[in-house]
């Protein structure tokens, strides 16, 4: 609980600061223009540095895929092409499954010790479902937001909005993704707080992004469903940002600045946090390499000679015993 309280306190301070700042008219140009630019710059530089400058600089010395299915060896045994790929195409398929539908997490099964005693393997799908609900909703919401950043509005944004609002509940129409993201994030946060195992392994840095994301979702939802906001002016601000003619039109509610500032914090925080799993998953050597080890040799750039015990040394050491037992000698 200690680490949750730490994270909650830290986040509370941040949120309070943002709320206070959003009230000050004088700070609006900072929150509405300077901060978003800075955040995107930090995001780009930070991600590129970590991926290319840190991870990418270190080589992959060995090919160590985790094989999660039958290998390709004998022609008449059907290989598991996606869970144990032997070709680049298979690897692309495996990575696609991993990135798009969280293949590995889908395997999650909870281990329970039942009376007997006996071990049972049950459930465990909730984590996968919540992760899918959150990540996919998040992606779709980001894509939907492109209606603010494109003029004329990009076709995909309109289409997604129509799909997302398919049920036409209420005015403005309720987006399914908004419900799912709250449910997903809520579950992910609650399990960390209330499951003793999860709470024990969680760091402040695990609670913080969840709280941040939830507040972004909540402020966004408040604007759409409850407080309402002047969408036309927000669009003006957004287009100003991306055309590098930043403007902060009058009449935008302070809630919007809270929302925007939290998003800026998220973008700038990402490169320094565990959220780097987003680019990181693509680089994982247990997933992104083909299990063709015995067919194609993998080269290790720092493969250095090591001290070995050669046959000659071995034969010399055991010469008499080898001779006595009648095994052949190279140097009799």
């Amino acid at each position, binding site marked *: 609980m200690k680490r949750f309280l*730490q994270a909650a306190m830290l986040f509370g301070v941040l949120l309070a600061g943002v709320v206070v700042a959003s009230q000050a008219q004088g700070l609006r140009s900072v929150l509405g223009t300077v901060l978003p630019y800075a955040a995107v710059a930090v995001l780009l530089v930070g991600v590129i540095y970590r991926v290319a400058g840190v*991870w990418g600089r*270190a080589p*992959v*010395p*060995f090919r160590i895929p*985790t*094989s*999660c*299915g*039958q*290998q*390709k*060896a*004998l022609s008449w045994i*059907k*290989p598991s092409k996606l869970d*144990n790929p032997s070709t680049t195409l298979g690897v692309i398929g495996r990575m696609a499954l991993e990135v798009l539908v969280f293949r*590995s*997490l889908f*395997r*999650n099964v909870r*281990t329970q*010790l039942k009376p*007997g*005693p*006996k*071990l049972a393997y049950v459930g*465990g799908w909730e*984590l996968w479902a919540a*992760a899918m609900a959150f990540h996919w909703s998040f992606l779709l919401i980001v894509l939907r937001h492109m209606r603010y950043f494109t003029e004329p509005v990009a076709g995909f944004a309109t289409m997604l909005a129509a799909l997302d609002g398919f049920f036409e509940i209420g005015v403005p129409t309720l987006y399914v993704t908004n419900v799912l993201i709250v449910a997903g994030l809520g579950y992910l946060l609650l399990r960390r707080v209330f499951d*003793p*195992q999860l709470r024990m*392994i*969680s*760091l*402040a*840095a*695990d609670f913080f992004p969840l709280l941040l994301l939830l507040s972004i979702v909540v402020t966004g939802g408040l604007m759409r469903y409850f407080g309402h906001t002047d969408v036309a002016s927000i669009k003006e601000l957004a287009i100003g940002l991306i055309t590098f003619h930043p403007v902060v039109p009058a009449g935008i509610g302070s809630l919007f600045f809270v929302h925007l500032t939290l998003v800026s914090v998220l973008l700038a925080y990402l490169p*320094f946090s565990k959220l780097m*799993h987003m680019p990181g*998953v693509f680089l994982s*050597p*247990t*997933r992104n390499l083909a299990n063709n*080890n*015995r*067919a194609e*040799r993998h080269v*290790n750039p720092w*493969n250095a000679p*090591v*001290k*070995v015990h*050669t*046959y000659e040394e071995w034969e010399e050491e*055991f010469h008499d015993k080898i001779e006595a*037992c009648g*095994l*052949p000698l190279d140097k009799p």
Partner: protein
Amino acid sequence: MSEKLPKPEELSTVDFRPVDYDWMTAKATFRKGTYSYQAAPKNLKYLGLANPREWSPIDDDWKLPDNWKTIILEGLRERLDKFRSLGLFMDICVRCGACADKCHFYIGSGDPKNMPVLRAELLRSVYRRYFTTTGKMFGALAGARELDVSLLKEWFYYFYQCTECRRCSVYCPYGIDTAEITMLGRELLTLVGCNINWVMEPVANCFRTGNHLGIQPHAFKDNIEFVRDELEEVTGIHIDPPINKKGAEVLFVTPSADVFASPAIYTLMGYMLLFHHIGLDYTFSAYASDGGNFGLFASHELMKRLNAKNYAEAKRLGVKWILGGECGHMWRVMHQYMATMNGPADFLEVPVSPVTGTRFEHARSTKMVHICEFTSDLIRHGKLKLDKSRNDHRVVTFHDSCNPARSVGILEEPRYVLRNVVNQFHEMPENTIREHTFCCGGGAGLGNDENMEMRLRGGMPRGHAVRHVRDAHGVNLLACICAIDKATLPALVDYWSPGVDVGGVHELVGNALVMEGENERTTDLRGDPMATSKGESDA
């Protein structure tokens, strides 16, 4: 086995719900039965490794070098530069907890630091403190911890409570592999001389004699001939197994336990019968007398030092390709490391089965074929005369060994062989086999007696699964393709599921093989009576 071992019912009351446990401050307690003894100085000296000395994990003073902290941190920096996996796995874990209850040691012990996520956090917390800005700035708040002796002791305790089985990496959404973290963690410990003897003695032996048991060439020959004689007694077939024969077509490399320890020797009998049956031109090597490689459990360097002999010997003997016996971690090394470390093997030829003509394209670079691949190809082509009913006294289940399953993907080959040599085969529950398979609890150098309680705890999931098929189907043989399994599973099965034996797949092949000129077989290779029904109907 120690007398103080708790009963299975007691071991099975594991509490998974830690209350008020703070992993960042909790220290490792070295309780008898749950840790392995320190490496003897002679072994470290022989290998030229750091800080050979008399010490014990339960001592307060571990007699570390004065600058041990610098050595560890420099070692960590070096490895971050050399292994992308390390930096990546340090950075991207989200602590989702999917791995937590996948570790057999956590399931069996309930010790939170046996959750793969926390095992990795032991290293990660140090990484944060010395290699990340947030860790340097915010310390414990950012999950960073000072590297001190008690933390080093945690590393020793928990990195030697991981069998590098890779089960957790199957479930990790980012493929974070605790085996990789444990391997590198143990490498760092090696830099300051904190090793266990059950790893270092075999490594030293293997470096000197060619095999982990330290069998010298004449004794190696004696042992093979002893097994050969036993075999002759059962079957009436006399075999002269070639050793160090130049110009043979195939070099056969198998773990040394196969020539030395029961029940692995019955697997060796199976190999010998098989090779005799098909007239294979092969040779054992007394120099490359162990395919197993405990170097894998200490450092990449030691792994390479031990592995080098295989290609060197294949070259010296002038064989065309290498055939590998039943072994778990050996196959991780042969499949994922050997060609990279000690290849290219351009002096060998792409393996071709001399009996069926099958070209093993999947092994065209490394030039090494797994015995189960080889045998299933023989069976498929109808080249073996088999009498399944000779195994009718056996009701068999198959334990996928961690490394063949999760580092190669040898899942169907052994099953195909088994289905062709036994009539009664039953799978264990699906969450405990194939890529989900559970470790024997004694891999990666942990299969020693002083660590018995931890082995039995780690073996609990496997033990429960065996008990399940024993009770449901009357299973009485747990077949496997790993020498460590054959050494460690008997104790485990006796404890969790008495009445089940452990044996190799090729032992069952040997039972079923109908050899030309053999005696009428009344016993299996172990000398145990076969089922009588067949004999009666024949009579």
